[in-house]
């Protein structure tokens, strides 16, 4: 029978299945970071259990780490906040005690956001199950892997058993056919999708993204799309493996080598939905209809095209939705019907596991080149996703372009995506951000977040307000 990609990935990992469908699913790759793992390591120790397979673990510190003032000689003492430092040091100690296939600690040259370092080191491969105590683990599905975020109890479960107990989700196919317009990116695709199906639209589903516009994306772009599958409610997003996938993985640090490479590629080429495979739900978009997107509210589904206006709650018939819109407008300090292009920004953040890879930085630099940050913009932070991305950008001279434009060039980490470190918005500040969540307080208490693509973020930085990046080309 014709199988979906999700069927193939699911079926190839079922160790055992109960009559009610609850399965024991084998986990190939376990990514670990400092925030969601301490209680799991502690639980394991308290129960007197040993990790099942250490070589499945790849770890890094990213959420709490500062993005400036690095001093290798001082090590973790560089981290000013004592509780952040304790969390990073706890990860150091846990990995030292338990072991790992690879560990990129704070300030290591390969350290970075867990969802950036996995793929760029070949730790994420097609056909794998990939888990991490982090909801944006959906990112790795770009490699035709079944990848999803888990809670800390499940982190402990994977450490102890190399498996998870779960039931199969329903399947959704989202196709984007056609050709994207100039200045329209993967970020705009996924924001448009969330705008269409809503933040709960994917709840209970595993989403496969397909169609010519998705196939035409680079791996970076596919990661951006899968990254935000969780913002549509789906734990897992995925894209079929193809030549683009294999070309990206060739010669990465942990990618298969020699004869293994050929065998792996032969297998990976089978990782796509079969002709005629059935999905529980199908959603179709046309690439030509997608414009650069800007969120206006406090949920990623509150999104419009940059050419649009802030919506009017008075036009919403559903009472719960209407009050949600009113609350969002109040929080965001916006008035209904304001043109998006007239909203000024105070801060710009270019970074996060959604948009901090080399291509994202190139797209932002292309707009910043030869221009200056608007005087009204207080600060522009560019935070590369990893040490490797940072060095690549510097080799291409992107750091110089950003600095000449008055942008700050930082060390890698999660940074102002969730503001657990010192990078955060002041109350009331409005930010054009390339991250994935615009929840209340996400980038700092009472901060206001608008999600956009890297090029749109750079455009807002140089003009001081949201600007259709297509005007620049």
């Amino acid at each position, binding site marked *: 029978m014709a199988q979906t990609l999700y069927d193939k990935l699911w079926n190839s990992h079922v*160790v*055992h299945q109960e009559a*009610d469908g*609850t399965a*024991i699913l*084998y986990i*190939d790759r376990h990514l670990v970071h400092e*925030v*969601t793992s301490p*209680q799991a390591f502690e639980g394991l120790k308290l129960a007197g259990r040993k990790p*099942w397979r250490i*070589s499945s673990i790849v770890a890094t510190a990213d*959420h*709490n780490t500062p993005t400036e003032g690095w001093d290798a000689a001082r090590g973790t003492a560089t981290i000013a906040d004592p*509780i*952040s430092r304790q*969390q990073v040091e706890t990860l150091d100690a846990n990995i030292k005690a338990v072991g790992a*296939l690879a560990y990129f600690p704070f300030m290591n040259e390969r350290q970075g956001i867990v969802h950036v370092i996995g793929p760029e080191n070949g730790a994420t*491969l097609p056909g*794998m199950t990939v888990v991490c*105590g*982090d*909801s944006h683990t959906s990112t790795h599905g770009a490699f035709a892997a079944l990848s*999803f*975020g*888990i*809670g800390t*109890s*499940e982190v*402990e*479960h994977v450490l*102890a*058993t*190399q*498996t998870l*107990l*779960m*039931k199969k*989700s329903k399947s959704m196919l989202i196709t984007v056919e056609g050709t994207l317009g100039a200045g329209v990116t993967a970020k705009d695709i996924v924001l448009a999708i969330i705008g269409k199906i809503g933040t*709960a639209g994917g*709840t209970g589903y595993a989403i496969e993204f397909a169609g010519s516009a998705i196939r035409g994306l680079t791996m970076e772009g596919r990661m951006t799309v899968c990254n935000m599958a969780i913002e549509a*409610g*789906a*734990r897992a997003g995925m894209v079929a493996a193809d030549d683009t996938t294999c070309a990206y993985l060739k010669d990465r640090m*942990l990618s298969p080598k020699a004869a*293994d*490479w050929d065998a792996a590629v032969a*297998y990976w080429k089978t990782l796509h939905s079969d002709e005629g495979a059935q999905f529980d739900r199908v959603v179709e978009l046309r690439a030509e209809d997608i414009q650069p997107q800007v969120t206006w509210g406090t*949920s990623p589904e509150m999104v419009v095209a940059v050419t649009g206006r802030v919506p009017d709650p008075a036009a919403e018939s559903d009472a*719960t939705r209407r009050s*949600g819109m009113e609350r969002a407008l109040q929080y965001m300090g916006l008035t209904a019907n304001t043109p998006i292009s007239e909203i000024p920004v105070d801060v710009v953040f270019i970074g996060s596991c959604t948009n901090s890879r080399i291509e994202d930085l190139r797209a932002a630099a292309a707009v910043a080149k030869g221009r200056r940050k608007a005087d009204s913009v207080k600060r522009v932070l560019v935070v590369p996703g990893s040490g490797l991305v940072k060095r690549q950008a510097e080799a291409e001279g992107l750091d110089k372009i950003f600095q000449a434009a008055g942008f700050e060039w930082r060390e890698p980490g999660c940074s102002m995506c*969730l*503001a*657990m470190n010192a990078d955060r918005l002041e109350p009331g500040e409005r930010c054009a951000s390339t991250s994935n*969540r615009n*929840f*209340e*307080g*996400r980038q700092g*208490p009472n901060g206001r977040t608008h999600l956009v693509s890297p090029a749109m973020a750079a455009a807002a930085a140089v003009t001081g307000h949201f600007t259709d990046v297509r005007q620049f080309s």
Partner: protein
Amino acid sequence: MQAFTLLDGLVAPLDRSNVDTDAIIPKQFLKSIKRSGFGPNCFDEWRYLDHGEPGMDCSQRPKNPDFVLNQPRYAGAEILLVRANFGCGSSREHAPWALLDMGFKAILGESYADIFFNNCFKNGILPIVLPKAELDELFAQVDAAPGYKLVIDLAAQTVTRPDGKAIPFPIDPFRKECLLNGWDDIGLTLRHADEISAFEAKRRVEQPWLFA
């Protein structure tokens, strides 16, 4: 894990959709390396008028009088009434830990985000899915009657209102069994350790590059 059987508890309403886990427990409290002590900071940004940081004495902080859960009539509530897509966003298990620490043992809502839903069961919290029409009535009844309680019977899969109406709810049989008995998932899974080893050995032969 604490077993969940019968709960006769006070109900508190939170009439919003898309309540995300950042709202349930803001990120600054995620720096703790413990599982407990998150209760005073549950809904921190809504609950207090000042900005909370770890280590503050919450009993001394100014409370937001407009936040519904601050009303004295809901003190000691064990059942939280919510709307759609509750617990969306981050996978942080600190969210159910905080709810539990604040005293909530069950949640009644229209829908939940997948990871949050899962995390509840791992911590002995019962997230119940009810149709919107039932929830609308419950919200109205809670509002009208201070001291409003509900009886949740997991074995019978019913929520019983003070007027006697019993509302049935669905639950996955495996999860029900685990909650009723307070079973530890890891212990259950390790009963299949031999099967896991056999599966792994086969995989090692078929895809050796996964085991480099």
